[in-house]
């Protein structure tokens, strides 16, 4: 599904939350599709089940996932998108990190933008391929 990066500054529960949101945004997880159980995803990612449970709980509260008692966890029929302010904040954080890397390696703005433009379709393609 996705991998956990221990040197990602984002805590693991947020990486899981973002990973699920990304799979939904890319259509790899369709509305109504079941998501792995906490136990299976924890084993798969080799993380603490409580961490997966925390991510699932946040996604459920945010209207992205829905829990059917005794049946498991599903993508909500109309999974909510992050609010615009949240989205902008996430982008700004990531952009700051990307910009510092670009500056550190001595890249010009135009080259950094080119790389980003190439990365966007590549990420989409890679996720589609995994489905």
């Amino acid at each position, binding site marked *: 599904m996705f991998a956990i990066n221990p040197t990602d500054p984002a805590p693991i529960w947020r990486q899981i939350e973002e990973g699920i949101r990304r799979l939904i945004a890319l259509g790899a997880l369709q509305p109504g599709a079941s998501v792995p159980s906490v136990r299976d995803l924890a*084993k798969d990612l080799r993380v*603490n*089940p409580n961490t997966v449970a925390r991510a699932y709980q946040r996604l459920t509260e945010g209207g992205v996932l829905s829990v059917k008692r005794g049946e498991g966890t599903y993508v909500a029929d109309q999974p909510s998108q992050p609010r615009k302010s949240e989205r902008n904040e996430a982008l700004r954080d990531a952009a700051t990190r990307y910009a510092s890397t670009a500056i*550190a390696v001595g890249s010009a703005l135009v080259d950094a933008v080119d790389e980003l433009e190439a990365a966007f379709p590549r990420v989409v393609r890679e996720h589609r391929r995994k489905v």
Partner: protein
Amino acid sequence: MTDNAIRISDLTVRYGRTIAVDRVALSVDRGAVYALVGRNGAGKSSLVRCLLGQQKPESGETMLFGEDAWSRRAALMQRIGVVTEEADAPPEMSVASIARFCSRLYDKWDQSSVEARLKTFGVPLASRFGSLSKGQKKQVSLALALAIAPDLLVLDDPTLGLDVVARKSLFEEVIGDLADRDTTIFITTHDLAGVETFADRVGMMENGRLVLDEEVDALKSRFRRIRFAAQPVAIDTAVLRTTVVRSWGGGAEAIVSNYDDRAFERMRGTSDIGAAEVEAMSLEEIFIAIAGGKS
């Protein structure tokens, strides 16, 4: 009732004139995973012996579920699963007879869980213990430890000497058990990469002292490596505490132990820092920085 599975206070262990454990205090919540790291001889094994009621401390106490580990050992061992560093049993005994022997020591014993786990691990019940690989011995040891559905699982350097595949299967089984029941796990290890994604809290021992005891998320959020493109580095140490600073190419590298995005951006805006790259660090890198920063 107490919410702590483990509560160690002011624990000191002495062998003759050597102090193995020096006034250690730590607590582990029920259902949490605690990883204890430190170099060989740091005192981890002595602390584990106290935890298992095998060592009477010189002072202080080790409470498990509100009961004293030393004086209530027999009763507590019914609730504690242990995987030791060197999984050991008579080499000529079969895995089945070892399981039968162990089952008599405990009030509750789930033989079908032992068989199911060994099947998952691919270890036949009929195999002689002496013929098993190191990884298989650990797997047998884990299957036996989990047969009593322990409230506390103590893993003493469980992945030492195991290959990648054996490590993975061992961790998967432990994670599965964590998900099924609210087991508390205390693990000593050298394999930080193995535990960093599933430990809630880490402790680090050095010369008998517990020099660090913190939530993994908190630890990882406050440590950063900052690479500066140029020297000298105009870092305001009153704002960012640097553990290690060293030259790196034409620039310098600093390990910051109280990193905060906003403070750094403010500093970037007011002083002449120049180009700098901020990187999060793995648990292993953080521990090396802590150990290196002291010596």
